[in-house]
C-alpha cells in the first residue's frame, strides 16, 4: 500500500521541467526546434556577427527557396511518397518565365505560365503515381530528367538574361518591411498550413500516409487526393522558381541541382516520417532553418566548404537518429 503510493508520488513528483519536456516531445516539431536552438547557440558563441539582424534576415532569405520547395515535399512525404523532380521543375519553370518575359510577354501572364507549368509537371507525376500505380521514386526520377532536359533545350544551355528590373523585387525587394522572399515563404507556409490542418483534404493527406488501404476502403478518393498532392509539389517548386529568377535576374537552366535532396532533408529533419502519416509543416520550416543556419554558420566560422558538406551529413544522421520514432515493445 505504502510502497505503491511512493511509486505514484515519485512519478507525480517528476520535476516540472522534465514533465513539460516529455509533453513537448510528443510533437514531431519538437526535435527540430531543439536542434535549431542548439545549433544557433553554438554558432552565436563561435561568431559575434551570427546573431546580428542583418545576418538573421540573410539566413531567412537564403532558406526561402529550399523552404518553399519543402512545402510541397512535406505533403508528398506525408503520404509516404517522394518527389525527386522539384529541383529540375524549378529550373524549367524559371527559364520559361525568364524567356517569356524577355520575349516581351506581359509579366503577370509570364509568372502565371511559370506557376501553371510547375503545377502541370506535378499533376503529371501525380497521374502516373495515382492512376497508373507507378512508384513515386521512379516516376519523379524520370520527370526530373525530362524537366531538366526541356529546360536545356528551351534555353540552348545558356542563361536567359536581360530581364526588366521589376522581377528583381521577387528576389531582393521588400514588402511590409519584410524582404519579399521571406514574405512569400511565410505566406505560402500559412496557406499550406491551413490546407493541411484545417481542411478535409489535409486530413486525407495524413490518412493516406497512415493507412492507404483503410483510407481507400472507407470511401475517400485517394487517387484524386494524390494527384492534387503532387500537383501542389510542382506548384511550390514553381513559386520557388519565381523567387530564384528574381534573385538571379536570369533564367538558369542548370539551377536547382540537388535541391530535391535539400528539400527532403528539411522535411525529414523537421520530424516528418519518411513512411508517411506523421509530421508537420512547422517542423519542415524549422528543418529548413536548421539547414540554413548550418550553412550560414559554418561559412561565418570559416569552415572549408568541402568539410561543410561532411559536417552537414553527419548532423542530419545524428538528428534523425536522436529524433527517430522509438518503437518500444508493448
Amino acid at each position: 500500500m505504502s510502497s505503491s503510493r511512493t511509486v505514484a508520488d515519485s512519478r507525480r513528483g517528476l520535476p516540472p521541467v522534465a514533465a513539460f519536456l516529455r509533453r513537448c516531445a510528443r510533437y514531431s516539431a519538437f526535435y527540430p526546434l531543439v536542434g535549431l536552438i542548439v545549433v544557433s547557440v553554438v554558432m552565436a558563441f563561435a561568431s559575434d556577427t551570427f546573431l546580428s539582424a542583418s545576418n538573421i534576415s540573410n539566413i531567412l532569405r537564403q532558406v526561402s527557396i529550399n523552404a518553399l520547395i519543402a512545402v510541397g515535399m512535406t505533403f508528398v512525404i506525408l503520404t509516404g511518397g517522394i518527389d525527386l523532380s522539384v529541383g529540375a521543375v524549378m529550373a524549367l519553370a524559371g527559364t520559361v518565365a525568364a524567356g517569356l518575359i524577355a520575349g516581351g510577354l506581359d509579366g503577370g501572364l509570364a509568372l502565371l505560365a511559370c506557376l501553371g507549368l510547375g503545377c502541370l509537371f506535378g499533376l503529371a507525376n501525380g497521374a502516373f503515381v495515382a492512376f497508373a500505380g507507378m512508384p513515386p521514386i521512379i516516376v519523379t526520377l524520370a520527370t526530373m530528367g525530362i524537366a531538366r532536359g526541356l529546360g536545356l533545350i528551351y534555353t540552348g544551355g545558356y542563361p536567359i538574361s536581360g530581364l526588366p528590373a521589376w522581377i528583381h523585387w521577387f528576389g531582393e525587394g521588400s514588402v511590409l518591411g519584410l524582404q519579399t522572399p521571406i514574405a512569400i515563404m511565410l505566406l505560402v507556409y500559412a496557406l499550406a498550413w491551413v490546407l493541411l490542418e484545417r481542411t478535409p483534404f489535409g486530413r486525407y493527406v495524413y490518412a493516406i500516409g497512415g493507412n492507404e488501404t483503410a483510407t481507400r476502403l472507407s470511401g475517400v478518393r485517394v487517387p484524386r487526393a494524390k494527384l492534387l498532392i503532387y500537383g501542389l509539389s510542382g506548384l511550390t517548386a514553381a513559386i520557388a522558381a519565381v523567387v530564384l529568377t528574381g534573385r538571379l535576374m536570369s533564367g538558369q537552366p542548370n539551377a536547382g541541382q540537388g535541391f530535391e535532396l535539400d528539400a527532403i532533408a528539411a522535411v525529414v529533419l523537421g520530424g516528418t516520417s519518411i513512411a508517411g502519416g506523421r509530421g508537420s509543416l512547422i517542423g519542415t520550416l524549422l528543418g529548413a532553418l536548421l539547414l540554413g543556419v548550418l550553412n550560414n554558420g559554418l561559412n561565418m566560422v570559416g569552415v572549408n566548404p568541402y568539410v561543410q558538406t561532411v559536417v552537414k551529413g553527419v548532423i542530419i544522421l545524428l538528428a534523425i537518429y536522436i529524433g527517430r520514432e522509438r518503437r518500444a515493445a508493448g
Partner: protein
Amino acid sequence: MTAILELRGIAKSFPGVKALSGIDLTVEAGEIHALLGENGAGKSTLMKILSGIYQPDEGRISVDGRTLRFADYHDAVAAGIGIVFQEFSLIPYLNAVENIFLGRERRRFGLLRRASMRDEAAGLFRRLGVAIDLDAEVRTLSVAQQQFIEIAKALALDARILILDEPTATLTPADAEHLFAIMRVLKRDGVAMIFISHHMEEIFEICDRITVLRDGRFIGVMPVADTDMDRLVQMMVGRRLEQSFPPKPPRSPDARLVLEVEGLQLERGGPINAFHLHEGEILGFAGLVGSGRTETVMAVLGAEPAYAKTVRINGEAVRLSSPAGALARGLGILPENRKTEGLITEFTIRDNISINNLGKYRTLGGFLDFARERTTTAEMMRQVGVKAPGMSTTVVTLSGGNQQKVVLARWLNHHCRILVFDEPTRGIDVGAKAEIYALMRSLTARGYAIVMVSSELPEIVGMSDRVAVFREGRIVRTLEAGDIAPAEIMRHATAGDIDELV
C-alpha cells in the same frame, strides 16, 4: 509402429482469445495423419506451435520420445519438422536449387559449389519422381511444381515429420494425384505427414488416421477405416458453446430489394455469380477460406476490378468503380482485417470515424468545423457504444470489439443503408461479439441491409436471414429459414465434386 511425434495437452491463448486447450496429437513414422476442423478450429495455430513460430502456454512436444522446446522455427527444423506453408515461402526469382539451399549454401573457399548442390537437388526430385527444370526461376513453374520444390526443400533439411497445410487447395485434380503419389513415396520411406485439407475425399483416399479439432479443443482421433463422412462432419460441427444471438425478426414478405448483383464474374472464364439483398435483411456469405467471398464483395464495391458485373441499387443500375463511388451510392464496408484495411491504427478514434464524412463538417470556406466534428463523433461513439477514455485515444490501444465499433461508426453518419461486414467478430471476445450482433440487428430494424461474410458457422447460422454458400468461387446454394443448419452449410461448402457428378 512407433510414435515419432507426440503432443500432449497443448494450450495457447492470445489476448482475449483462448485459441487452443488440451490438444493431443500423436503421429507415427510412415503415417499420414489428417488434421480436420472448421476454419478457426485451431489447426493453423497448432501447426504454428509445432513449427516453433508460436510457443505453447501449456503442454509438451516430444519427438522420438524426447521432450523438446522450440524457441523458434529453426529449432523445429533442427528437430526434423518440415512445413509446406499455404503461402509458399519460395523466392520467385531464384531457381529450384537456389531455393532449396537458400541460407545454407554449400561453399568452398567462399565460392558456391553449384554442381554439388545441383546434384543433390536433382537426386531429391528423382526420389520424389517429379521433373523440375532446375534452371527455371520458380515463378515460371506451375503451382504444383512450386509445391514439390517446397517439399524437396523440407526433405533437404532431413525432415522426418512433414506438415502439409491445405496443399491441394490450389492444385488441379491431376496435380493433387501427383502429390499423393509423392506422399506415398515418402510414407514408404518412413516420413510422417500431417495433412490438412477440407476435402473429405482426399482424406479418405490418402490418410491413415484423423484427429478432429473444434473451437480450439481436441474432439477425437480415429483410423480412417472406422469412420465416414457424416460422422466426421458431426464431430467438426458438434454442439458448441452457446453464443447468444439476438432473435431473428420475422421476414416481411414485401421487403424491398435494395441490392441486386447479376453476372458478376471476377475474371475472364471464372464462375459467374448473382445474389440480391432485401431491406432489413442479413445475408450470410458462408464458405471455406479462399472460396471467393471477400473477393466477391470487394468486386461489387469496386474495390477490386471485376471482369463483368451488373449492380442495381434500389432498382437503379449503377456503375461502382471504387469504394468512394460505392459510398456515394450508399454502400459501405467493414473490412476483414481491421488493422490493415479498416483502421488507421496510429490515429485517434475521432480521425478514424470522421475520415469518410469530413465533407459534412465543412464550413462555407471549405474549412473543417472542429466543434461540429467533435459533437458528431461523440454522438456516433455513444450510438455504437465505443468504450474509450476519449475520442482522442489512438485506436491501436482499443480492444478488437471497440475497434470494430469505430469502423462501424464511420458508416453511420452517412446515407449508407447497405453495409458489408467481412468477418465482423474475428479476434473479438464473446461479450463484445454479442454487442456487435445486437448492433447489427438494431441496424436491420432501422432498415439497413447487411451482407455478412463469416467463416464462423455459429455466427452464420445465428445471424443470417439467408445464407449464400460459396465453394471455389461459386455460390453453390442459397439457403433460407429452416435449411440454415451447420451440417447443411458444411456439406455444400466442402463436399464438392460429389453432387456435381450425381
